[in-house]
Structures are given as C-alpha cells and as structure tokens.
C-alpha cells in the first residue's frame, strides 16, 4: 500500500449527496480480476456520454462537458470534496481502487458509508469527515479560485488551505499508523496469532458445531 504522509494537491468537487459505489464504478468493470486499472472508468456514467465497456480504450470516448472532473481546472486533482453519505451501497472495493487509480489520495465529506470508509484505509486513500458547514466552506473557496489546492498533513491531522487556515480532523490511531507507514494490516493482525489460537480453542469447546468439516 502507498504510504500517506503529507499530500498537497488540487481539490475537485463531487457535489452530490448519497454518491453510491455504482456511480463511483459501474458494475461492468467489476468483472476484472485485477486490483488496478479502474481509474479511466471512475464515475464512468457521469464522466462519459456513452456506455463504457471493460477493456475499452477510453481515450476516444465522448466526454460529458458538464462533469467537473472533465474541466481543465481540476486536472490532476488529488483531493475530492464530497457531500453526505459518500460511498453508500455496495461493498465493492473497486470504488476506492478506482479513486486511487485516478489519482485521488483523499476524500473530504461530512459523512461516509461505513463499508466504503473502511475500504479506503486499505488502499492508501484517506477519508476525512468534517462538519458539513466546513465542507461547504471548502466547496465555496474551491469554486471561487482556480487551482485551489489543499495540503493534507496526516501526521499533524491537519488540512491547510491556500489562505493558510488550518483545519484539524480525526482519524483512528491504528488506521493512521498503517497509512503513514504503508502497512498491510494482515501482517499486524498475525502478530496476535497466539491470541487468535487461544480464542479459537475455547470457542471450539463452547460451540463445537461451528467447527465441523464441510463435505
């Protein structure tokens, strides 16, 4: 996983509440057995005017001129500003894979759907929850200034605006540690291997029917 310490990048808008994971990456692209290459199909149905197919070269497809990510001013954006309940719906991890593959490192929203929120941390993508009024203020500032960049300082848990304003944010201690160090949490869980074995042994005595072989 790509480590996340300090990221400074253009902010782009996804100015809609309840953006679902079908919208982030439509189902036809879920047929891939790979983890990478989803970026060109991020927000596919909103970004292009035609229906996308897996494996298709997207460079010749008609772009939706009204979709912000197609505006020159948001090219190369790394921070996505979003609204309430971002990432609702399916558990597909292809959603954070697509955002990350496109180049996003951080999504800021007043709230996220639970499964999407968890999935982000496994992929070097930082979801930040801020008060709705603060998010709204960031939206307005971004709209008002072309090339609006935000600095996301994860170790300091701060967002720094172009005007120099510092906005603090919360992040789980363990998630922060994994992101900063680019750590795979399976390796960390396996450090508790002895505890898992102890639990499993006791649980098997209490609920032996759960441990029968499947024929």
């Amino acid at each position, binding site marked *: 996983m790509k480590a996340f310490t300090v990221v400074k990048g253009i902010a782009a808008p996804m100015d809609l509440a309840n953006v*679902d994971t079908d919208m982030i990456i439509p189902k036809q692209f879920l047929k891939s057995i790979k983890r990478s290459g989803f970026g060109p199909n991020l927000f596919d149905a909103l970004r292009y005017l035609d229906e996308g197919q897996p494996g298709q070269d997207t460079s010749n497809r008609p772009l939706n001129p009204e979709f912000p990510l197609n505006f020159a001013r948001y090219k190369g954006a790394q921070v996505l500003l979003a609204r309430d309940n971002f990432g609702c719906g399916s558990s597909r991890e292809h959603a954070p894979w697509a955002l990350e593959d496109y180049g996003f490192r951080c999504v800021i929203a007043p709230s996220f759907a639970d499964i999407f929120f968890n999935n982000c941390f496994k992929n070097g993508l930082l979801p930040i929850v801020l008060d709705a009024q603060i998010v709204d203020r960031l939206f307005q500032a971004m709209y008002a200034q072309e090339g609006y960049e935000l600095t996301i300082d994860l170790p300091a848990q701060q967002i720094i605006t172009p005007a120099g304003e510092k906005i603090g944010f919360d992040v789980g201690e363990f998630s922060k540690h994994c992101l900063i160090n680019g750590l795979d949490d399976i390796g960390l869980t396996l450090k508790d291997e002895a505890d898992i074995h102890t639990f499993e042994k006791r649980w098997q005595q209490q609920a032996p029917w759960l441990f029968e072989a499947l024929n």
Partner: protein
Amino acid sequence: MTGKTLYDKLWDAHLVKMRDDGTGLIYIDRHLLHEVTSPQAFEGLRLAGRKPWRISANVATPDHNVPSETVERSAGVAGIVDEVSRIQVQTLDENCDDFGIKEFKINDVNQGIVHVIGPEQGLTLPGMTVVCGDSHTATHGALGALAHGIGTSEVEHVLATQCLIQKKSKNFLVKVDGKLGLGITPKDVVLHVIGIIGTAGGNGSAIEFGGEVFRAMSMEGRMTVCNMAIEAGARVGMVGVDQITLDYVKGRPYAPKGAHWDQAVEYWKTLHSDADAVFDRVVEINAAEIKPQVTWGTSPEMVVAIDALVPTPESFGSVAQRQAAQRALEYMGLAGGQPITSIKLDRVFIGSCTNSRIEDLRAAAAVVKGKKVATTLTQALVVPGSGQVKAQAEAEGLDKIFTEAGLEWRAPSCSMCLAMNADKLLPGEHCASTSNRNFEGRQGFGGRTHLVSPAMAAAAAIAGHFVDVREIDVREIV
C-alpha cells in the same frame, strides 16, 4: 448492570481482544465467497505466501456473473458467452480448487445467490459471525447472526487470519408493532422503514428489527428485511432467535445434528436482546400505517405508498434534498405530482437476494395465475434464488403458472438486480423490480428501477403499470 442487546451478545462472544486504539479483533465463523470480490484477495494471499487460516470456515459459489438464460447456462462455465464474466467464474473455481475451499459450482443443484444458499443449506446459523465481500450479507442477521459485508482487502484478511478488525457499532432498534394489513409484505415493511430513517439513517449502527411484526414474520420475510438494512446505511440487520428461527434451521443439510443440535439450541435461545437492554436509538412504527411501497427515485429512501403521487422537489425540506429529488426525477423521466399508478413499465424483474425465495415466488405466482402479462411489456423475468428454490417451485408447479402467464422462468443468479450477466435494462426503460437498489444505472445503463414487493411486481406485470395489489384478485395456489 443493564441487560445486553443481541448485537452486544454476539460481539462479546466473538471478541478475541480489544486493541489499544479501541477497535476489537473479532473472530469470524463463516466466510462466504463469490466470484466478483474474491479474485484479488486470493491473489494477495498467494503473493504473500499465506494460507487460509481455517479452510472449513469458507464456502463459495458463483452468482453475479452466471447466466440466467437456460440454454446458455446448460453448458456450464465454458458456455458463458461474455468472456470477461467467464474468466471471473473460472478464476473462482480455480481458487477454490487450489485452496481446497468448498464451492457449489455453476450447475450444482445447491448453487445459488450466496445470501439465499447460506441459510438454506444451514451454512449460516444463529450466533455465527458471517462475512462476505458483498453488502447484502446483512441478510443472514435474520437468523440471529452477526453478519455484514466487507471489502476485498478484508476478504483477504479473513482468509489469512479468521478475524476482522472492527469498531463496535451503535445499537439501533427498529420496532414495528401492530398487525400488517392484508397484502402488506416484508418488502413493504423494510421500504417503509428506509423511507422513514433515510438511506444514511443507520450509518455506524447495527439495526435490530423488533416488535410484533417481526416476531410473526417467516424466516424468508426476516431475510428480506435484514437484507435491506444496508440500504438504510446499517451494515448489520438482525432479528432475535425464537421458535420460528429454530424450526427453520432444524434439518438443514449443514445444521448441527444430535447432541450438537441440543447444545446449539440451548445457546441460541439466549440470542435475543434482554428486556432491560439499552439501545442508542429506537424508532417505533405502527404496522397499520404501512401500505404497499414503490420507489420513484434513485435512492431506496425515495419511496412512497402505491396510492401516493410522485413528490415534487419543492415538497422537500432542505436544498440538498430538493436538488437530489430534481436530479432523480429527471433521471427517472417522471414529473412531480403524477400518480404512482400512472408509471408505465417496460420490464419486470422478480428475483435477487432480497426476494427470490420460495415464499416470494409463491406470492408472485398467486397474483399472475390464470392471467397474462401486459402486451406493452418487453420482458418479465422470474429468477429463483437457488437451485433448491428452483426445484421446489417446479415441484409446486409455479414455473408453469409463470410461463403460462407469459413470464420467463430462469436459472439461479443475481441477474437483473445488478446486470452483471446478460439481463439488463436498456436506457430509459422502467422496471418493477423486487431487488434492493434503484441507483442510477444499477440495472443497466440509463435504466429506471422501481423497487417493490414480489406481489406488487407481479401485479404490475399483468397491468403494465403499477397497481395496488390489495385491489386485485389473488388466486389460491397451494
């Protein structure tokens, strides 16, 4: 000391350890796998040189990509026309064969939608922790299990460690008391609940469905309700164990037998919230208020009763809601103020992990028996949730009732719920669907989904537009 909720009991029973940061390491009893969210997890396991922790905890089946069309289906994996889909199903087969994981392959009589076959086979049981790389895993909570969807990285984590790192959710009780009116189904109950609490209402919470309505509900009905907890934002939906649960589980192929059964039942009988348990939030609903539900928009919370009008954007409180309603109406090609019954349909889909069990098919068959699908309809599909449901329905003659009425009888798969196989809507088409999501493009690029119960979908298939199922003649079929 105050009592515990069902969720507290299940969490405590599976807690390996609390970690320093306040999250818990939770032991997973059952891990269900399907072809879409598992290939990258198996690849990760191989790259790291890891083995599954406990093979017998895992069960797999292909469901999202498998064809429902019977001729294409009959040739098995090799016969899947869409090459990308075929490779994904083949990859699941190879991964399960390599690691020795139990799999119900494409044309096994026990194959089906993963959330239908789990309870049906007794592979998911009361008191279990159940996970799957699929958000509708909440379904299994109907058994009094702690079940929720996970992402692919967590699929790999569970394979490798048999555990998940979890933050404990809040306890949320949705209580529906009173008696449901005639023709009101579990689907109407859950859509009504989502309409009240909203699509993000359950974020951060585990929802327990309590009250007289759920106590009286069949297991299939409870599964429909828990299945859609995620559409209210809650990863977990659950119903406490009672005699209905035990009667359902008893005798299932993988359910415990003999002394293990008695031991299990003794434990399972404790799996309900204590009378003095405290919930973080409680919503109470009167069953008598619930009417047949139809969604008009692009989020499951955009739902009204059959006798209502499509709402106007101005009728919503906040600017964000008004904008969302405006966008949804444009996408759906509807006008605020038009009656729900005036929405003309192009297709009807009866199936999905929400509504493809035997009771759902019986309810739909009772409505269409002796009638004909409207000539204005392009297609009406009935897709049973599993090979076992299909066999049962055929033994009861339901397939004949459907085909004589002009509906197509298909093979078990997720089908048009998310259109990963060939079953999909064309741009602009309206569909009465018994599935769980009406998101933009969910059932096909530009497709327009209306979520309803099986009986309402069947009634709409006959009329060609939405009708109130309470006002039509329903035949006795059994």
